[in-house]
């Protein structure tokens, strides 16, 4: 608590962890290249430097605010210093901005522009390293790396993976996997969180835009899309829209305009996941184990469990993730000539997630050797396509998703939030449609801040001990406690990305605290505005049990992982 002066104006601070946060709160957007509020402080880029009244320069991200302090953020000396830092960075940067994937969305480029760096006195650097296309999810381009270390800290600190790290020194210094292996040969789980924090084009999404666009142009191919819950509260950001606003209607319209024959809602798939997973849970619960049942929706988590905690793999639910549910059921639907009209059918998932690009390739999710989904495009790729086609997103009139897979419950919509899968599953166990009971569950602790939440749900006189965790380092610690007998749960939801899929690796980047909160509330609000709250009351989902998938639930809706 206290008051400090920033550029002559008094600013109050409370629990801000560093001066940089106070400066930003005061409405001044200091440029930074190595500060993310949820990562450890690294203090490498020095762009956030400020001056105190004695003329001392220091990094504002690395110091606590003190009462009575007075600092300046933009003296001529600071401005010169910042410009020089960027010039030095650019001198050793492979600057092919016009053809760089990150152009226009690049933090380095933006800062250089803002600071008026219009020339670099020290010449030009040629390409030195090959790009790494080995992963279906992310592309590494080390020539674009400015060694800020953000990816290293998120991969190691938040995800507990450490697939990439600094190597070598001096002018040879790089951020690479051990032994300069391809990223696909490491323990990388494809979460794409490194790509979200990377300020440059050094880590980007491995894009599948081209084949999808070719199919859209082909009159002999019927192309359908499904749109995941988290996409709708983030896509607007790509068009300068309001943070966290649900723009599903416009997305559907834009996709129709791009040539998608049908646009479905993955929320339907989420309801199917809940129907199957809650059945599974009740079976395990009645049998008395093995506990905990672990959720299966997040492919980055599943891969993490397989590589780090193989002993827990049998605890993972076999129910398909929502995208697979819809993909598998739609495959069945389009096998009928009445629906495919003699055309080839292409199934596309629009996802907030880079790991889904890897999930669709998994052997245990194929049927008759064929994938359930042909391509996954991330939210970011969808935004790129809409822009490339010149469609004015803002001007679109919203459209409803197509039937029969265009309708989902409120439970399905909140899947995109950490805690959403658990809440939807437990909501389906609530008796009837009693609002009070749904309300109780909402306030049970399943929602809320923090990467780990533990709570108890009362079910027919029994207590269900549940936990919700996001971020794999946190999940790792949780599994260790379970293994050591320090913690016990019946049911655990794990999502690899902190806060869940709303902050997935394929979402528009540059999401600060307010963006995160806005996306979360956007989904909870969509739930409020949905009439059907419970997955097990979705009429289309219930109907297909008697028709399309009758007697084939296990074949069509479950992984044969184990």
């Amino acid at each position: 608590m206290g008051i400090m002066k920033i550029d002559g104006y008094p600013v109050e601070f409370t629990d801000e962890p560093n001066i940089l946060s106070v400066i930003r709160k005061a409405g001044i957007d200091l440029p930074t290249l190595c500060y993310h509020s949820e990562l450890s402080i690294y203090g490498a880029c020095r762009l956030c430097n400020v001056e105190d009244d004695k003329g001392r320069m220091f990094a504002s991200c690395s110091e606590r605010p003190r009462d009575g302090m007075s600092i300046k953020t933009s003296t001529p000396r600071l401005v010169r210093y910042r410009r020089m830092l960027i010039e030095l960075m650019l001198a050793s940067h492979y600057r092919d901005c016009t053809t760089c994937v990150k152009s226009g969305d690049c933090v380095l480029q933006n800062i250089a522009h803002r600071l008026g760096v219009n020339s670099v006195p020290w010449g030009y650097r040629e390409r030195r390293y090959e790009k790494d296309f080995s992963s279906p999810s992310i592309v590494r381009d080390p020539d674009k790396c400015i060694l800020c270390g953000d990816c290293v800290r998120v991969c190691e600190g938040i995800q507990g993976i450490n697939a990439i790290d600094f190597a070598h020194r001096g002018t040879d210094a790089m951020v690479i996997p051990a032994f300069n292996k391809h990223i696909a040969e490491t323990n990388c789980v494809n979460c794409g969180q490194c790509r979200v924090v990377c300020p440059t084009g050094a880590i980007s999404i491995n894009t599948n835009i081209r084949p999808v666009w070719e199919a859209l142009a082909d009159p002999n191919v019927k192309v359908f899309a499904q749109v995941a819950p988290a996409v709708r509260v983030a896509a607007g950001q790509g068009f300068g829209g309001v943070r966290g606003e649900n723009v599903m209607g416009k997305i559907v319209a834009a996709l129709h305009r791009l040539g998608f024959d049908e646009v479905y809602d993955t929320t339907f798939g989420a309801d199917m996941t809940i129907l199957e997973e809650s059945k599974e849970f009740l079976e395990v619960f009645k049998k008395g184990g093995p506990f905990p049942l672990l959720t299966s929706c997040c492919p980055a988590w599943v891969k993490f469990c397989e590589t780090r905690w193989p002993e827990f793999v049998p605890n993972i639910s076999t129910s398909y993730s929502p995208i697979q549910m819809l993909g598998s059921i739609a495959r069945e639907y389009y096998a009928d000539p009445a629906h495919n009209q003699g055309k080839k059918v292409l199934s596309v998932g629009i996802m907030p997630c880079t790991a889904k690009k890897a999930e669709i390739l998994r052997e245990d999710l194929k049927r008759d050797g064929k994938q359930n989904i042909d391509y996954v495009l991330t939210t970011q790729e969808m935004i790129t396509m809409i822009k490339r086609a010149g469609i004015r997103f803002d001007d679109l009139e919203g459209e409803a998703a197509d039937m029969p897979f265009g309708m989902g419950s409120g439970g399905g919509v909140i899947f995109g939030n950490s805690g959403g899968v658990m809440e939807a599953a437990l909501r389906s166990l609530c008796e009837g449609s009693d609002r009070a009971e749904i309300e109780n569950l909402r306030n049970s602790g399943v929602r809320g801040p923090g990467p780990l939440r533990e709570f108890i749900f009362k079910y027919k006189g029994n207590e269900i001990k549940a936990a919700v965790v996001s971020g794999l380092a946190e999940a790792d610690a949780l599994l260790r406690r379970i293994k050591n007998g320090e913690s016990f749960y019946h049911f655990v939801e794990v999502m690899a990305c902190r806060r869940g899929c709303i902050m997935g690796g394929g979402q528009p980047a540059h999401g600060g605290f307010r963006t995160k909160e806005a996306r979360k509330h956007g989904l909870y609000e969509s739930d409020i505005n949905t009439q059907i709250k419970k997955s097990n009351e979705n009429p289309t989902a219930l109907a297909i049990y008697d028709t399309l998938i009758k007697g084939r639930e296990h074949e069509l809706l479950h992984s044969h992982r184990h």
Partner: protein
Amino acid sequence: MLDSSFYTKTDEILSKYPAQERSLIPIIHEIQETYNYVPIELLPYIAKHIGITETKAYSVASFYERFSFEPKGKFIIRVCDGTACHVRQSLPVLERLRSELGLSDKKHTTDDMLFTVETVSCLGACSLAPALMVNEHVHPAMTPDKATELLKELREEASKS
């Protein structure tokens, strides 16, 4: 693939240190002392033993110049190409050494594992420029001919031992 003697030796080294991250540098150092280089295959093995990721082990090991992942020759010749040495013609010395030994900027070590030729940026012996070092020993005021002579002497020394 390394033969099992490497792992036996490594086990011996590992047993001297507590199994924790802090032991990494002393362990790699001892491996370097033992083999004159750090066989890269040992890093995941060491990492696992002390409970860190192989990425961390590689990150640390590749940072320090004194650790080398390539086997080095009996004589490590470090030719200085710092400013002082450079202006006093260190490059012809380097070129002579490389051409006599069939080495280049890609290939640093002779197949008989006798010589490794590297460049360094300053040996801290600028008044003796152009200088080079053979293992721990500085040779001042080098010329290409003196370099040829030096190789002859080193070969003789090697054949005696």
